[in-house]
C-alpha cells in the first residue's frame, strides 16, 4: 500500500561533534504508562496498561527550534504534558530549564510558555486584554516589561482590532494569536507549541510561522513544536524529532531527514514504518 522508500531512510543523526551547551530540555528514558480498567467478563474489571511514551531520550539545546512530529496518538501531547509538569512520568528522568518539572512546578512554570492548539489558555469570558492583565499578575511581569511586550505582540500579531473583545467571540485564528501572545508575555526560556497552526488559513499560518522564526532568532527562545503540517516543519524547524508508538524513530536535522526529497513523502514513509 505504501510506496517503498526510494532511498533508505536516514536513521538517527550522528551526534554533534562539538559538545553542546547544557541542554535546556533533558529527558532520559521518559515513560508514561496510562492504566485504565477495562471490562473482563460480567463483573470483573481488569487493569489495562498502555504505554503512551516509551523510554524517550531527548536533549534540546538553548535556542533550538525542534519539530516534534509523529502520527496521531504517537505520544506527542503526552510528552509535552510531562515537560510542563502537569503529568507525572511513570519513569525516567526529566529536567527543563534546570528544574524537575514535578518538584519545581511553580518555578518551572515561570520559565515556560505553552500553547495547546485545541484548547485556549485564555479566559473565555474575559476580554483578551483582561486575560493578559491576569497573566501579568500570574507571572509577576514588571509593568514596564509587560507594556513593552504587549505593544510588541499587538503589533506583530495584529491583535489591535480584537484586544477588547471577549475570547469566546474571537475566530480560531484570532484566538490562536492571542494564545501565542499569552504564552510569551513573560519572556519564557522554553515554549511548547502543541499544534499552533491547527485550523489556520494559509495567510495566518504564514504569519504565525514568520513570527515564530523571528522570535527564535531574535530572542533565542527554545521552541518545541508539534504539528501535522509538513510546511510548518519545512519552513521552521532545523531539527526534527519523530516519534511513533511512544518511541523516537528519528532525531536529526531536517536536511538529513529529507535528503533532497519531497518532505511530505519522507514523512509519510517515516510514519508508516512499523516497529522501529
Amino acid at each position: 500500500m505504501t510506496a517503498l522508500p526510494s532511498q533508505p531512510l536516514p536513521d538517527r543523526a550522528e551526534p554533534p561533534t562539538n559538545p553542546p551547551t547544557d541542554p535546556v530540555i533533558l529527558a532520559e528514558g521518559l515513560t508514561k504508562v496510562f492504566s485504565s480498567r477495562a471490562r473482563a467478563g460480567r463483573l470483573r474489571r481488569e487493569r489495562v496498561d498502555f504505554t503512551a511514551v516509551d523510554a524517550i531520550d531527548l536533549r534540546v539545546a538553548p535556542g533550538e527550534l525542534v519539530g516534534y512530529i509523529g502520527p496521531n496518538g504517537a505520544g506527542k501531547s503526552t510528552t509535552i504534558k510531562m515537560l510542563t509538569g502537569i503529568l507525572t512520568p511513570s519513569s525516567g528522568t526529566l529536567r527543563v530549564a534546570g528544574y524537575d518539572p514535578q518538584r519545581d512546578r511553580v518555578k518551572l512554570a515561570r520559565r515556560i510558555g505553552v500553547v495547546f492548539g485545541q484548547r485556549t489558555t485564555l479566559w473565555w469570558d474575559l476580554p483578551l486584554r483582561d486575560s493578559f492583565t491576569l497573566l501579568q499578575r500570574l507571572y509577576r511581569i514588571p509593568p514596564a516589561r509587560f507594556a513593552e511586550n504587549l505593544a510588541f505582540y499587538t503589533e506583530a500579531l495584529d491583535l489591535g482590532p480584537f484586544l477588547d473583545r471577549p475570547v469566546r467571540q474571537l475566530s480560531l485564528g484570532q484566538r490562536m494569536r492571542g494564545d501565542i501572545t499569552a504564552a510569551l508575555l513573560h519572556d519564557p526560556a522554553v515554549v511548547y507549541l502543541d499544534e499552533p497552526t491547527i485550523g489556520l488559513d494559509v495567510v495566518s499560518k504564514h504569519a504565525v510561522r514568520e513570527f515564530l522564526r523571528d522570535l527564535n532568532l531574535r530572542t533565542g527562545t527554545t521552541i518545541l513544536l508539534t504539528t501535522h503540517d509538513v510546511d510548518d516543519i519545512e519552513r521552521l524547524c532545523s531539527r526534527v524529532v519523530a516519534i511513533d508508538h511512544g518511541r523516537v524513530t528519528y532525531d536529526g536535522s531536517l536536511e538529513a531527514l529529507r535528503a533532497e526529497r519531497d518532505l511530505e513523502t519522507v514523512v509519510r514513509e517515516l510514519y508508516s514504518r512499523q516497529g522501529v
Partner: protein
Amino acid sequence: MRVYLTAARLSLRRHLAYRSSAAAGVATNTVFGFIRTFVLLALWRQKTVINGWDAADACTYSFLTQALIAPMGVFMTGTELGPRIRTGDVAVDLYRPVDFQSWWLALDAGRAVGSGMLRSLPPVLVGALFFPMALPLSPLRWAAFLLCCLVGYLVSFSLRYLISLVAFWTMDERGMAAITFAVGFFCSGMILPLTAMPPRLDSVLQLTPWAAVIQIPASVLFGTQSGGLAYALAFGLAWALLLLGAGRLLTGAARRKVVVQGG
C-alpha cells in the same frame, strides 16, 4: 497575593455581567421564599415560639436564607473547576505558577460577591412587603452576621472544592454533587431551621459543617446563637481549616496521580 485579588476582581466583573441569569435567579429565590415561608408559618401556628424564634423570625429566616443561596453556594453546586477537569481544560490551570486551591478560591469568591450584589437584596425586600420581618437594627449585629457569612462562605467553598476535585478520579462530579446537594439542603437548614428540628436532631446537625453556612449566621443575626459570636466563629473556622486542609491534601494527590483528559 495580588494575583488572587486580580483573579477575584475579574471573576466578579464577569459575574456582574450575567444580568439576565441573575434576574431569573432572583425570581426563583423569591418565589421559593414564599413557599418556604408558608410552610414555616404552618408550623409556627402550632406553637408561637420555637426555640426562641417567633413567626416573624421564621419569615425573616426564610427570606434571608433564600437571599444567601447563591452567594453562599448552599446547594453545594461544585465550583467551575469540575467541568474543566471533565474537558481537560484543567491542564491549563495546572501549569500556572499559582497555588491551585487559592486560585479557585479567588475565582469563586469573585462569583460569590457578584451574586451577593445582584441577588441578595431583592428576596428580602419583597418578603418584607408581604410578611412580618424581624431584622435587627443594631449595626454590631449586622457586622457579626457578615463575619459569620464570611466564615460560612469559606466552609461552603471548601466543601464545594472537595466535591469538584472528585472529578479528577470519577471524571464527573455531578453524581457526587447530587448527593451533597441533598445532604447539604437538609443539614444547612433549608428545609427547616436547625433550631426548629427536634432537639436531639438539632444538636447533631449543629455539628456538621453545613450548620456554619446559613443557620449559624442567621442565629447570630437574631441574637439567639448559643455560645454567641465567639462560638460561631470558632466553630466555622475550625471546619473551614479542616476542610481546606483536606482539599489541599486531595489536590496534591490529584496532581501526582491524575491524568489530564484530551490531546
